[in-house]
């Protein structure tokens, strides 16, 4: 029960503190590091977006955070400290039985494919009853119905849908039902893995709107993982950008949009053509994401980067604090040698030093 020992808490508001989290896929011959040395802090009620392309490690991070990972994925280092009542638990150390007590109650998850996450042969109401009963065994049948009705109401699903099977609901409704289910036991943290990728743009907007409104009302924090940075810029309070298993930049949404400091972040931001602003030819990011088996020695982004210099080819950059245009000590970090004065980098290109006003 080591992990349950209380640790003095310097920051009341801190809900989740991930330190040095490393996840490897253990293969017979060699292992692949899918998440390397991840540090993340999440405060109560905050929405943290995690953006990255396929293979960047964002889904691996989610399954590690929720301890849902299966072999060959193994957490080989780091801590996931979760504030729970007055203690701080290290999720990495917990046994399955202890985790079970936390699931739904403290940490819940919404997955990309709601069709696969709901039980196809149980009515919606029965699935809510299952979750509610698991965590409050003596709850009465009436309370279950009342609570289910309330939860479905939160996401705008009419009561009579309690009697429906998942296949009778539209994709958007299923996804909203999953969100309601995730909120059933008032968790402090909801982890969302691309919850809107499989739904249409109008439904996506409805779901995002609901997440924001419910967050305001219920005060839960969200880790929201997606490849769609343009969506995160509108939704998240802070955004972490992942590349080749590492966080390469983290900052407020405003800073990531207006003053991206890592060339990859900048390229990713400019990979979304504007909806209203004047059009110009965009080029995306040349090349393809690296193979995690054959990462370059230096910066993993160097082969695709147009600003590389000697240090980029020999040393991997660490996250450094960036002085942003908007404010100074706002936790804006980027892992790019161009911002490390000690290495005497070439002059910073304006696109990585400028601040764009909205």
């Amino acid at each position, binding site marked *: 029960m080591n992990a349950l020992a209380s640790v003095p808490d310097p920051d009341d508001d801190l809900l989740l503190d991930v330190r040095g989290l490393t996840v490897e896929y253990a293969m017979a011959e060699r292992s692949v590091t899918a998440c390397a040395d991840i540090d993340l802090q999440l405060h109560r009620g905050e929405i943290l977006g995690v953006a990255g392309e396929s293979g960047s490690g964002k889904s691996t991070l989610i399954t590690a955070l929720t301890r849902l990972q299966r072999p060959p994925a193994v957490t080989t280092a780091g801590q996931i400290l979760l504030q729970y009542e007055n203690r701080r638990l290290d999720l990495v150390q917990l046994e399955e039985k202890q985790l079970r007590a936390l699931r739904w109650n403290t940490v819940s998850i919404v997955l990309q494919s709601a069709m696969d996450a709901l039980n196809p042969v149980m009515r919606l109401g029965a699935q809510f009853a299952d979750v509610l009963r698991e965590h409050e065994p003596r709850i009465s049948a009436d309370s279950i119905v009342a609570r289910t009705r309330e939860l479905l109401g939160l996401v705008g699903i009419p009561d009579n849908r309690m009697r429906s099977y998942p296949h009778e609901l539209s994709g958007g409704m299923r996804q909203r039902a999953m969100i309601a289910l995730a909120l059933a036991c008032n968790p402090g943290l909801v982890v969302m893995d691309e919850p809107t990728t499989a739904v249409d743009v109008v439904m996506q*907007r409805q779901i995002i709107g609901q997440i924001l409104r419910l967050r305001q009302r219920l005060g839960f924090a969200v880790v929201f993982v997606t490849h769609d940075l343009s969506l995160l810029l509108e939704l998240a309070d802070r955004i972490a950008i992942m590349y080749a298993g590492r966080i390469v930049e983290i900052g407020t949404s405003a800073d990531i*949009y207006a003053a991206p400091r890592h060339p990859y972040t900048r390229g990713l931001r400019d990979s979304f053509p504007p*909806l209203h602003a004047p059009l110009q030819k965009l080029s995306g990011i040349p090349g*393809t994401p690296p193979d995690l088996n054959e990462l370059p020695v230096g910066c993993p982004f160097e082969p695709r980067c147009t600003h590389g210099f000697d240090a980029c080819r020999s040393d991997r950059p660490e996250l450094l604090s960036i002085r942003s245009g908007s404010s100074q000590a706002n936790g804006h970090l980027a892992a790019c040698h161009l911002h490390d004065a000690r290495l005497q980098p070439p002059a910073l290109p304006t696109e990585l030093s400028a601040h764009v006003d909205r």
Partner: protein
Amino acid sequence: MSTVEATAALEAINVTKHFHVRDSVGSGATVHAVENVTLRLLPGRIVALVGESGSGKTTLARLLAQFYPVTSGDVRLHGQPVSGKRAGKDYFRQVQLIFQDPFGSLHPGHRVRYNLERALRIHGHAKSRADARDQSIELLERVSLIPAREFLDKFPHELSGGQRQRVVIARALAVQPSVLLGDEPISMLDVSIRLDMLNLLARLRDEEGLALLYITHDIASARYLSDDVHVMYAGQMIEAGPKDEVIQTPMHPYTRLLVEASPDPGRAGRSDGVFDETAMLGEPPNLVNPPSGCRFHPRCPFAMDECRKAFPDRTDLGNGHWAHCWLHQKGRTAELRTT
């Protein structure tokens, strides 16, 4: 659109497609997938077709590709009606379809070389083995898979998603078509390489004068790539015109909803309020029993009696921009412009 009408490379004229299906209890039903739709693809122009899933975009593309026959209406290739006949090699030599999933559209057991040379041989473009090989290399270079010689001997599983989609496009080009139909060609690709693919399609339009249909649900990419935008809802074509007219001043409530719902990084951080506008709107209808009249009326904040009774006629708004909406017929156009 100019006053002199150019001959369309491929056009659908008032096409309708109904599918007959059996429901769960075995009784027959009709899915009204595409209803009386007209679309023209001109050489050297890209038309974007946008709409939600189930709006009939893919069905329309497949009608254009002659995957299945139209229920009524005409498909014309270079002005010649083709419906009624079974599409053959001659048709596919002109019209090629690119699918969404580059992982599923290449033969996994064969190298890139085979995938390309087969298309060249079937359509009689290669005179000899050496010729097929030379042409394959040239095709790969056209889609920027360089060094082409190396890519020839790769298997699809050795390529990234973007590289695979390039091979798919190269294979479509092998046939030397005049029309390319892209059904969400970039939606399964990584964000950072999507633009590359869009730029490639734009180059094919500009340099080779291909007529292109770009089907997408992503309005921002439609704006980036296309010349004209068509909007479909529940099987009906509800608005079309030059891209910036349609996207910046939508003249149908549904188009406006789509544009407002689309992520726009430039809007970020302004307020949470923008999200509320669409919150209470419903979902696209079931096409077995579509709503009467304008199929958008159950979700439309402007709906009036006429909307339930009949689908409105087309209103021309000038400059090739048109919409099917009763607001224009009733002199209420101004209401659409208010924010």
